[in-house]
């Protein structure tokens, strides 16, 4: 049966809860209400209030409590209602969780799940893509699945990991993406990109919902005789540099595409690594395509103008191939 991206995450969490009694959930409105997006629906009934903890409106407490429980050997899965609100727990994440192992050798197994991304007309505070803040923080892992298969496999790996993981779910994919996935247990390793689509003429390095923008562009480009390879990073930190470089060495052209704003985004880091380590293989400069350097606007025409789309990818791809 086709499974949605949302249901895949739900299954992954559910199975981990069944498998390991040290896994528990903590967050706002996740119990009785089942979460703002219903990821945790039914879990309170199955696992009880001890393991599905509704908290006050208090992100620093949610994250802090998850860190404390993780230090004590539990495996907390904390939910931010929207990734935009993760800022309220920012100090706990970047100063407490991320640095414990390096500073004093203490493991903080912990997952912070956060619905991120735009495309639902959520406006400036329900649409952000905050990955770059965390990619700039050694000690964290940052995961952004694009497919239902990866979403389930990656949430399981994240829960089993012994380092703090920021797990950014794209809210526009929750019910849009449906695919066949294995019913039982499987994992997708953290830190490994995958080739989402094979190609020969250029590489589009991307992740999250932009994988589908790249796919749409690649379909059009193919009809024009341009074969685009799509690298879906899946994990942004640690970054799978090898897969990126191998693809670029093969195609000799690279577009880095992401949904977050351009300046200071992870695209700059990826472009720099390609330039440093695969320069001799490039036939054209690396191109970045990203959202505008503005807050995420609310009204549909503004939001559409803000977000990267297939037309922009196609235009840049054509230009690259003519270079």
């Amino acid at each position: 049966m086709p499974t949605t991206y949302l249901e895949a995450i739900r299954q992954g969490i559910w199975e981990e809860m069944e498998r390991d009694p040290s896994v528990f959930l903590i967050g706002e409105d996740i119990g009785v209400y089942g979460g703002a997006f219903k990821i945790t629906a039914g879990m309170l009934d199955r696992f009880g209030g001890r393991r599905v903890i509704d908290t006050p409106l208090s992100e620093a407490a949610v994250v802090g409590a998850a860190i404390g429980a993780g230090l004590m050997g539990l495996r907390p899965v904390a939910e931010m209602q929207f990734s935009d609100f993760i800022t309220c727990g920012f100090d706990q994440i970047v100063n407490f969780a991320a640095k414990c192992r390096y500073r004093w050798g203490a493991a903080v197994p912990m997952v912070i799940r956060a619905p991120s991304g735009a495309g639902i007309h959520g406006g400036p505070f329900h649409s952000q893509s905050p990955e770059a803040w965390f990619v700039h923080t050694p000690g964290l892992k940052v995961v952004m699945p694009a497919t239902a298969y990866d979403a389930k496999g990656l949430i399981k790996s994240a829960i089993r990991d012994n380092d703090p993981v920021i797990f950014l779910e794209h809210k526009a994919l929750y019910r849009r993406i449906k695919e066949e996935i294995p019913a039982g247990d499987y994992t997708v390793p953290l830190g490994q990109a995958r080739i989402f689509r094979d190609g020969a003429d250029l590489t589009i390095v991307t992740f999250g919902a932009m994988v589908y923008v790249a796919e749409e562009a690649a379909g059009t480009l193919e009809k024009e005789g341009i074969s685009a390879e799509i690298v879906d990073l899946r994990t942004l930190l640690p970054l799978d540099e090898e897969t990126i470089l191998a693809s670029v060495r093969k195609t000799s052209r690279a577009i880095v595409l992401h949904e977050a704003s351009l300046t200071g985004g992870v695209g700059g880091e990826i472009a720099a690594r390609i330039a440093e380590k695969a320069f001799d293989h490039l036939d054209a400069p690396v191109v970045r395509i990203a959202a505008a350097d503005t807050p995420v606007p609310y009204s549909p025409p503004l939001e559409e103008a803000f977000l990267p789309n297939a037309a922009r990818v196609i235009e840049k791809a054509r230009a690259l191939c003519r270079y």
Partner: protein
Amino acid sequence: MAAADTMKLAVADGPDPDAALAWRFLHYMFLMREVEERIERKLYRQGKIVGGVYSGRGQEAISVGAGLATHPEDVLFPCHRDMALYFIRGVQPRQVFAQYMGRVGGLTRGRDANMHMGDLRLKLVSIVSAIGASVPVAAGAALALKYQGSRHVAWVFFGDGATSRGDWHEGVNFATVQKLPLVLMCNNNQYAYSTPLELQMACANVADRGPAYAMPAEIVDGNDVFAVHEAARRAAAHAREGLGPYLIECKTFRMTGHSAHDPGDYVPKHLWAEWAAKDPILRLEQLMRERGWAGPAEIDELYARLRREIDEAIDWAEKSPYPDPSSLLDDVYERR
């Protein structure tokens, strides 16, 4: 109140077992005082310590009185003026000196400075510099203890300044809602860096914050180690009974600047003198002599022994190597 009364400690009449307890108090209070004196007034000035030095001088009764009320399985979140908690848990002075000197013999092997020390095997969780951040984390440790069906308690230590942070309030609110086994030990030393209490909060006492969370909160003389100890025992019993968090405000005074570089010129001079007279170690010595718990030379003998141990600890720490730069990249993540 007569001067003699303010000096009196909250110790029960009768010789024992308070005598044995008093000796344990004195041991750890003097050890903390002397280790910090050496760090702040000798090693720092000799340039052997790079970076900040934060001392708990004058506040030793708090970490000692509370520390000796904890169970070894309780989880402790010390603040930066609670060095005695480390000694009570079994950390050696030599490790503390090495920590302050950035050597591999320190608890963080040169990764972090001064009181930023932790060891999960000893149930000691390291502070971070954003004061108050430990409170929600301690709530999480308390949650884990409850989750695991343990009867043990998490103890979080902080100063008056920390109670201005949102993290403090979020942690306390969550812990009280969940009735978590958490003891909140405040050293109200009346200054947050240079900021006096009246610029820090509009209420008179940190304990006044308790009722907002339906949390018991009591005020004790933080320079009376017996009073702190008894309050800590009450708080722990409350938390162990599943009745939720308990706040103790220890009124004290920071007998030093915020850190070694800060002479504390902003403190009115008369306060130094008033609080010097209430020194927790002098008060304990006086009590022990009055009660006949300590013979004429016994206290001096203890101090001489601890000083010798400290001399040796400093020698050891100075011989401990600096970390090898090749270890820079280790342990950002779990080694696979």
